[in-house]
């Protein structure tokens, strides 16, 4: 097992860059998720690490060795695709054993390794079955088994559970994570699903249009997104973002949502911090996740009256659309807390969970209150 380093990697398709100046470090035993919308360059990055795609400039190091000019077969890494590429005429056992057959391992060693992997993947009872007799989840387990059995330096996975249904994905992501904890194989995992990325990753690298946006732990990218793209790509429901402004108040800062649709009281230091950034106080995008929109049923100091619009009961909690003047902000409340559309409740934004972005660049001002 080994670490992987990407240095200034560029990749073009014709005139257009697919990856631009990518610098990324995946530590030994780390589970890194490459996350982004389709076309962001995440799969190309993965394929470049695997050697399935050439890069135009930069370096790729595996275990300290530059590998960008090496063939895929000489990089000692295993690749798992979205569609289970199994041999239909071979049993699950033979499919897993296949990569070892080419080596000179003895039958006993092969058998031992196959059974070890099968045990970790909980497919011991399925080893005699052909792929056609397996469920989608089990086929993908076999495909992963085939990748793990070689004990490669790194495991690369391209949306490996993207084709499965929601419940099975939920199960498989917990299992894959558990397998990783047991194996400690350095893993690079590509997905467009932020829930999967948050749930599985040690570290998430978010890409957009070929450019790396942010690298950090799930908690980091969720709590401290560096720009609007990351802020709104991570998290469901999506982070509320409205244009607004800040004004100095008497012992506090006024935060204006929209064109004075609502005026909220924030700590006085906020205004100074915005000004310190030499940022125009009128050109702010104000972001807050639904759990940062606090709701009370009674009039409460610092809260303003707002009208409830749509209520989405999701089971353990509700998502309630609140009308701050013409601005709709979604709030996460206890189930049944707001009874019906049209009710007036009181609300404010939690200053610790409110983000301020530059409206023209989308960059976060990194103000922490």
């Amino acid at each position: 097992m080994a670490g992987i380093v990407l240095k200034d990697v560029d990749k073009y398709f014709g005139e257009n860059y697919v990856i631009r100046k990518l610098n990324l470090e995946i530590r030994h035993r780390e589970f890194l998720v490459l996350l982004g919308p389709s076309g962001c360059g995440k799969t190309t990055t993965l394929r470049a690490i695997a050697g399935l795609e050439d890069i135009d400039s930069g370096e790729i190091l595996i275990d300290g060795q530059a590998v960008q000019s090496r063939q895929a077969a000489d990089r000692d890494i295993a690749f798992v695709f979205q569609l289970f590429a199994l041999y239909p005429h071979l049993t699950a056992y033979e499919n897993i054993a296949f990569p070892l057959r080419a080596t000179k391992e003895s039958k006993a060693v092969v058998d031992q390794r196959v059974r070890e992997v099968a045990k970790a993947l909980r497919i011991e009872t399925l080893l005699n079955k052909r792929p056609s007799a397996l469920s989608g989840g089990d086929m993908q387990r076999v495909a992963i088994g085939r990748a793990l059995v070689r004990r490669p330096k790194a495991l690369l996975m391209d949306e490996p559970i993207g084709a499965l249904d929601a419940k099975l994905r939920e199960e498989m992501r917990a299992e894959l994570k558990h397998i990783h904890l047991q194996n400690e194989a350095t893993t690079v995992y590509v997905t467009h699903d932020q829930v999967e990325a948050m749930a599985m990753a040690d570290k998430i690298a978010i890409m957009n249009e070929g450019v790396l946006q942010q690298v950090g732990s799930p908690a980091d990218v969720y709590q401290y997104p560096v720009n609007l793209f990351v802020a709104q790509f991570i998290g469901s429901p999506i982070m509320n973002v409205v244009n607004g402004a800040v004004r100095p108040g008497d012992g506090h800062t006024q935060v204006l949502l929209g064109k004075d649709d609502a005026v909220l009281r924030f700590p006085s230091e906020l205004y100074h911090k915005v000004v310190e950034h030499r940022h125009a106080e009128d050109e702010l995008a104000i972001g807050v996740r639904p759990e940062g929109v606090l709701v009370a049923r009674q009039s409460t100091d610092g809260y303003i009256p707002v009208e409830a619009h749509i209520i989405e009961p999701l089971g353990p909690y509700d998502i309630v659309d609140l009308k701050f003047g013409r601005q709709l902000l979604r709030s996460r409340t206890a189930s049944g807390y707001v009874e019906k559309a049209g009710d007036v409740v009181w609300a404010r934004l939690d200053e610790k969970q409110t983000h301020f972005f530059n409206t023209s660049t989308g960059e976060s001002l990194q103000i922490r209150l």
Partner: protein
Amino acid sequence: MARVELKNVTKKFRRHTALSDLSLDVGDGEFFVLLGPTGAGKTTTLRLIAGLDTPDSGSILIGGADVGKWSAAQRDVALVFQYYSLYPHYTVRENLEFPLKSKHRHFSAAEISGRVARAAKTLRIEHLLERKTDKLSGGEMQRVSIGRAIVRQPRVFLMDEPLSNLDAKLREILRAELKDLQMKLGATFLYVTHDQVEAMSMGDKIGVLNHGRVVQIGSPYQIYNQPRDTFVATFVGSPAMNLLSGVLRDGRVVVAPGKLEIPLQGAILSHLAPGLDRVTLGVRSEDVLLGPGGGLEGQVYGVENHGVEKIVTLKVDEHLLKATVPARMAIAVDSTVPFTFNPSKLRFFDAQTGANLGSVKEEVHHG
């Protein structure tokens, strides 16, 4: 707008029974969601109501009238599909006008342009009216498809997974828009999906379908809190409800002897039929509470960060169960943690049939 009723509808395709004795009552102005996995019979139900297929037995009523012998056009319902069926070489305006220019309708030019303008405003696609539909994004195309249904002012809207081809963020936005639209129009919506989040968030009422049968009909709150059986319990809610099979012994459910035993309180005990010895215990992840006091312990098998919260998988013997905890809580994999259950949220199911042993007697009120 109209009420839609299905009474004892059965539909077979050769030997395969797609719908079996299905009865539904969708109220006038109601947002009714048919939820179920692939092959449950959701789309067949919509096609029968639209008049694209005929049932083998049973009746279909729209606005109180039996429409069994009515053509699709006479039924005056609008279908919106997963795939936007727009005319690619025409503008958005032309696409919206099209349903109003059919031979069977006689609308004045002023009426047509008025309806198109109102629909475009409602869907916020006014700026797209002169654009060709092949220049639109997926979300815009789906808005236009819905617009084509709206201009007709049909008695019922039938929607077949209209959001499932869109990406997650757009789905989230359009889901709120659709609900808003339905409230504004006061229209009857029958909406088909396999996505339980869509069903929960949009439906006034949800009908859960499986293998061509209605399993349960209720408000999102009822479906979530009082699932009729283990199918509904695990199909609705994410993560899926924890199900643990246990033995009833001396007023306790024993899942793992000495390690996972849950004492039952009087009220719950009386729900469980005497003579029953095996039950399936159901508990949602948010009702598995990490902390001391319950005398239960589990080993942390995995931790998933979901931003606002974490989902912890606990292992007790060979049983895995999930708990939702605040994101702030620090939890190490392989550590041993105490936990307990929220006793009022435990659900009990028949080990053989999967039926909820308590929901029959309990009436749940909400709000």
